[in-house]
């Protein structure tokens, strides 16, 4: 289905990507690559354009210019549902659960191309629908177990704590075994114990071959998980390299703290 990747070609390649809102240039010619098997971090001061970049990659926004190549195919301007079906999943900075649906249903919604999503199949092929539903449920329980949410399966998602909602965001996208997951500030507003759980889960998924691209302000998380790190400021990429390198990079320090004296 997908063009085969050469070993050197990155999983996600962004070139010359730009987005302006009126006279405001939010993303200003970004070039970056996310290589398969990495946890690539994306940091930068507030207003640097990080979430806008994620919205462009995930299809929530259409770029003003530039290209986005995922697994060898151009995806810029495609609608978000299609990009998700390609195996590129994203979570939201502010969690967006389906609050009145149970946690289990939040997950069972997700599998792609369910027979029962077609109106008539529910009447004409109830056996197939029931079979898939049982499989989806089993899969959802596995994922909930993995994300430490199994006890909450029958709880309406609106009743979860902020940290649990972050785990739910991750759990939902795991229902499809995505190739690349964009996480928008997974640790923000989460208590330290739950951050450990979250980080552990991310590292475990990484060992299983999932690639991550993560916006995060928690530097401890970035330094422990991310390699390489991409730094954005004022809509541009100003650094890409090791996390340690970013800490010593002049442009990065300037972006965070203003121009420092020599």
């Amino acid at each position, binding site marked *: 289905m997908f063009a085969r990747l050469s070993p050197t070609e990155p999983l996600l390649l962004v070139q010359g990507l730009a987005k302006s809102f009126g006279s405001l240039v939010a993303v200003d010619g970004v070039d970056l690559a996310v290589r398969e098997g990495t946890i690539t971090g994306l940091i930068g001061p507030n207003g640097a354009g990080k979430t806008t970049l994620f919205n462009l990659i*995930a299809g*929530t926004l259409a770029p003003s210019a530039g290209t986005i190549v995922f697994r060898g195919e151009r995806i810029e301007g495609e*609608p*978000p*549902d299609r990009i*998700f*079906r390609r195996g590129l999943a*994203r979570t*939201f900075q502010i969690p*967006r*659960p*389906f*609050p*009145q*649906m*149970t946690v*289990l*249903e939040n997950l*069972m*919604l*997700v599998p*792609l191309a*369910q*027979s*029962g*999503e*077609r*109106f008539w199949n*529910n009447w004409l092929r109830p056996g197939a*629908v*029931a079979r*898939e*539903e*049982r499989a*989806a*449920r089993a899969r959802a329980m596995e994922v909930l177990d993995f994300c430490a949410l199994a006890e909450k399966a*029958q709880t*309406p998602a609106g009743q979860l704590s902020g940290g649990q909602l972050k785990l739910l965001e991750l759990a*939902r*996208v795991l229902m*499809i075994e995505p190739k690349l997951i964009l996480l928008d500030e997974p640790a923000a507003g989460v208590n330290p114990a739950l951050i450990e759980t979250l980080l552990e889960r991310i590292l475990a998924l990484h060992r299983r071959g999932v690639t991550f691209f993560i916006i995060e302000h928690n530097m401890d998380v970035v330094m422990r998980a991310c390699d390489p790190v991409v730094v954005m400021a004022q809509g541009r990429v100003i650094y890409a390299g090791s996390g340690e390198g970013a800490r010593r990079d002049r442009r990065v320090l300037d972006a965070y703290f203003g121009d420092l004296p020599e």
Partner: protein
Amino acid sequence: MTGVVSYLVFFACVVLILGIVTLGLNLQWGFTGLFNAGVAGFYAIGAFTHAILTAAPQPQYLGNFGLPWIVGVVAAMAATAAAAWLVGVLTIRLRGDYLAIASFGIAVSIQLVTLNWEALTGGSQGITRIPKPLAGVFDTPLAFNLWYLALLAAIVGALYVALERIVRSPWGRVLRAIREDEAAAIALGKSARRYRLEAFVLGSTMMGLAGALYASFIGFVSAFDFLPIVTFQVWAMLIVGGSGNNRGALLGTFVVWGIWTASGALVTKLVPPTYAAQGAAVQVILIGLLLVLTLLFRPQGLIGEEAVVSRHAKD
């Protein structure tokens, strides 16, 4: 005594017919979050399609084909589905208030067409002599109405069971997800437009079915049966009964139509004929008051939304 019984049977028939409309709106609004303010328009398309196809031929009309009842019912649903699909394709990108304004305008246009296309719809005269199904079998109006009540009860029962099943299916789960957070549903791979359109067409088709059942129950339709007040009444029924709950939709239909007819009877009795117009306005005010009181003191409606969980996701 017979008078009371026949009136109650008549009342129950109208409640069940309007109940189908409310169930259709509940699928659109209660489960998918689509603000359809053009209910009366789809109800009208069903009623007029049925009337035009089945009414006894008359030389001055284009239609009035005298076709069998069942042909009229099926064609009414097909015509309404086609109209809803067209309206849906054109407006489905619109959110909330914008969809409401567009669908309201479309319904008003449909009503004006039925009022002015005299050769097809009889204009202000309407279409008469719409045959009632199996009317020849029954010798009294009460006997016919009882049979029709049984027929309606069977149809509403079947629709209720089908709706309860479908909102608990994976298809219904996507509708509920779209209602709760459309952007999240899209980010999780669901093509929201497809589901919005399907729910819009299906709900509207139910309204068209109700229109056909109304036409063949009364035996007469005119453009004045489909003024915007009908849309308002159906919305009141859904909100008062409990949006997102099929039993609530039916209960609300009963309560609101009960208040409407009771206040109508009272007004006719108490208000002198010279003030008939003001009396009729009192009816509308009462429904408005009921709606406002519901929204203020019991916004979830009489029954309220129930937690709907997919059949295979329960404990």
